[in-house]
């Protein structure tokens, strides 16, 4: 009887909250956060398609085989290169007082080869291989772990979960919930569930759309399995769960929740540089452990900062999931306990 009553009350809270979390003007920016990376990947897909079409057109006019391009090596003269490959589709020359420099560009229809000459001698070869699935998967993994999880989902969850209690305090309407014959813990559970549904729907949809946009340029090569779509969507949902619990508690307990939010942001941001033992007291560590493609954090990083990185063995997936669920449950139980002491003093808030 009690459980069925609690369930009915949770449903009632979720029903009331749903409209607010999905359609509140205050939360509109959360949609922008979720939409932004989709637009970025859509733009990238469009740009790649256009680039490929351009290279194909160039290749049709200046046909060069990949084998011929690969046979060129530094030290060759410009004449030798041009004899072997023919007329480049792009030639740029810089004439200085003492020496001249030139760039000859060729394509096989997929990649661009730029040969750099100092005077007459080939000094460097740059291969621009845009749209390589392996490389781009790593780029996506880096984006997902260092930008999407740490910033977009993080702040999206701030927008959704902090307002569950603090927003109602600001609107002076929280007391209606407190005047119902409902355990405060049930209220916390209902509100969390409502926030979780909203955050999961918004951000998991965003992840799915990002992956779809990411996959478009690769056609059939980028299958659901190769994209690790299920894993990425699962990690997104777990991020909403973990950060959601943290920010619901912040909104419930702190008069100015932005202070704990800033604290969590700093802690999660510093996670990379924390000792292995401290790394594990964070949400991001477990989320990264669950990511299907591990992004090397030191790549493109200032060498001095890279020195500060401490590595910790990623936790095994079942343990990471169980850890996240346990942390979430612990925070919610604590929030429920504190909610029992919750007072309404709108003026002081």
């Amino acid at each position, binding site marked *: 009887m009690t459980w*069925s*009553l*609690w369930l*009915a*009350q949770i*449903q*009632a*809270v979720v*029903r*009331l909250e749903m*409209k*607010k979390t999905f359609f*509140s003007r205050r939360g509109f920016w959360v949609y922008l956060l979720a939409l932004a990376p989709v637009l970025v990947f859509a733009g990238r897909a469009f740009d790649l398609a256009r680039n490929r079409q351009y290279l194909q057109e160039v290749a049709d006019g200046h046909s060069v085989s990949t084998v011929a391009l690969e046979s060129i090596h530094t030290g060759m003269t410009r004449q030798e290169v041009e004899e072997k490959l023919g007329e480049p589709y792009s030639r740029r020359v810089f004439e200085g007082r003492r020496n001249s420099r030139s760039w000859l560009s060729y394509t096989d229809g997929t990649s661009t080869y730029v040969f750099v000459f100092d005077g007459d001698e080939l000094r460097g070869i740059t291969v621009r291989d845009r749209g390589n699935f392996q490389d781009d998967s790593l780029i996506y993994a880096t984006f997902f772990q260092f930008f999407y999880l740490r910033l977009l989902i993080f702040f999206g969850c701030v927008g959704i979960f902090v307002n569950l209690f603090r927003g109602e305090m600001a*609107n*002076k*309407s929280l*007391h*209606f*919930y*407190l*005047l*119902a*014959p*409902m*355990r*405060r813990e049930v209220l916390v559970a209902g509100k969390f569930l409502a926030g979780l549904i909203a955050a999961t729907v918004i951000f998991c949809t965003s992840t799915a759309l990002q992956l779809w946009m990411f996959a478009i340029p690769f056609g059939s090569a980028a299958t659901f399995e190769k994209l690790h779509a299920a894993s990425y969507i699962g990690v997104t949902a777990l991020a909403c769960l973990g950060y959601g619990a943290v920010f619901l508690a912040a909104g419930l307990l702190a008069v100015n929740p932005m202070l704990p939010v800033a604290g969590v942001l700093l802690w999660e941001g510093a996670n990379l540089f924390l000792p292995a033992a401290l790394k594990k007291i964070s949400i991001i560590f477990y989320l990264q452990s669950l990511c299907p493609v591990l992004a090397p954090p030191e790549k493109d990083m200032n060498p001095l900062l890279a020195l500060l990185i401490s590595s910790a063995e990623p936790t095994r997936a079942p343990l990471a999931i169980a850890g996240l669920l346990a942390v979430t449950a612990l925070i919610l139980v604590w929030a429920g306990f504190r909610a*029992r*002491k919750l*007072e*309404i*003093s*709108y003026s*002081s808030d």
Partner: protein
Amino acid sequence: MSQVSPPPIEQSLITFDNVSRFYGEVLGVNRVTLSIPPGITSLVGPNGSGKTTLMNLMTALVRPTRGSISILGISPDEPENLFQILGYSTQFDAFPKGLTGFQFLYSFLRLFGKTHAECEKLAWKAIERVNLVEAAHRKVAGYSKGMRQRIKLAQAIAHDPRVLVLDEPLNGLDPLVRAETIALFRQLGNEGRHVIVSSHILHEVDMISDQVILLSNGYVVAEGKISGVRSEISEHPMQVLIRCDKPAALAAKVFEQDSVVEARLHADGGGLLVKTRDADRFYKLLNHIALNGIEIETVAPADDNVNSVYEYLIGEESSK
């Protein structure tokens, strides 16, 4: 609303036992000890006297710094039990956004775990009781102040509670609705419910209250039935208005009694206002006089009302 059967005596009172509440350095209420029986009880006091704090303490919207509270045997720390028997219409004039009057009540009732059909039935019943049927499907945000007061009242009574706590429920109501609402309070009080009303409109409090609690600066300065409270204010002689055929003769007679401190003839020559320190003795004297040739038409206490009691107990204090 159904008639409530009388509960056991220990569960029929709202009690405050040495309750204090401080907001940091600021005093909300201090050392309040009260037993509130069924009927209409009015909380009276100037702004900041602690009326709303007392109501919020009853409903666990704020917690006592010390002391304990019991609502018909239930602690405010058990909201799951308390709000089955208590409805509170707060002073906060804000509502969940985007809801119509009906949706507001319906969704509130759903929080009780009731079924869709039950909630619909109870919501409409409450809406009918506060005469808001025509506006039920309009957004609460578009309601007038009076309509918002009524929908809050509907929310408080919708689940048929035994205890109603109403913070300034008559604010913003037009005279007709005000009269209807007072009649509703009377009906609820007569059904044996606790109806606790705060108001600063003293003549209305006088009309509706079975008992009053007078608050000043966070302290309870008096409680009980108005007449009882009045009789305990010894420093102010009781005023009695008498209509009779020979007021001058009556004045001479009443001055024979030591306790009479003043007697003033009415301008129309048809009555007398007497101030006495011993009302019981004075009424006995009047009986005697009535038997001795002076025809007395009416005898009525002139300051046996909330207004006078408030003036004596709080008005003077605040003017000190």
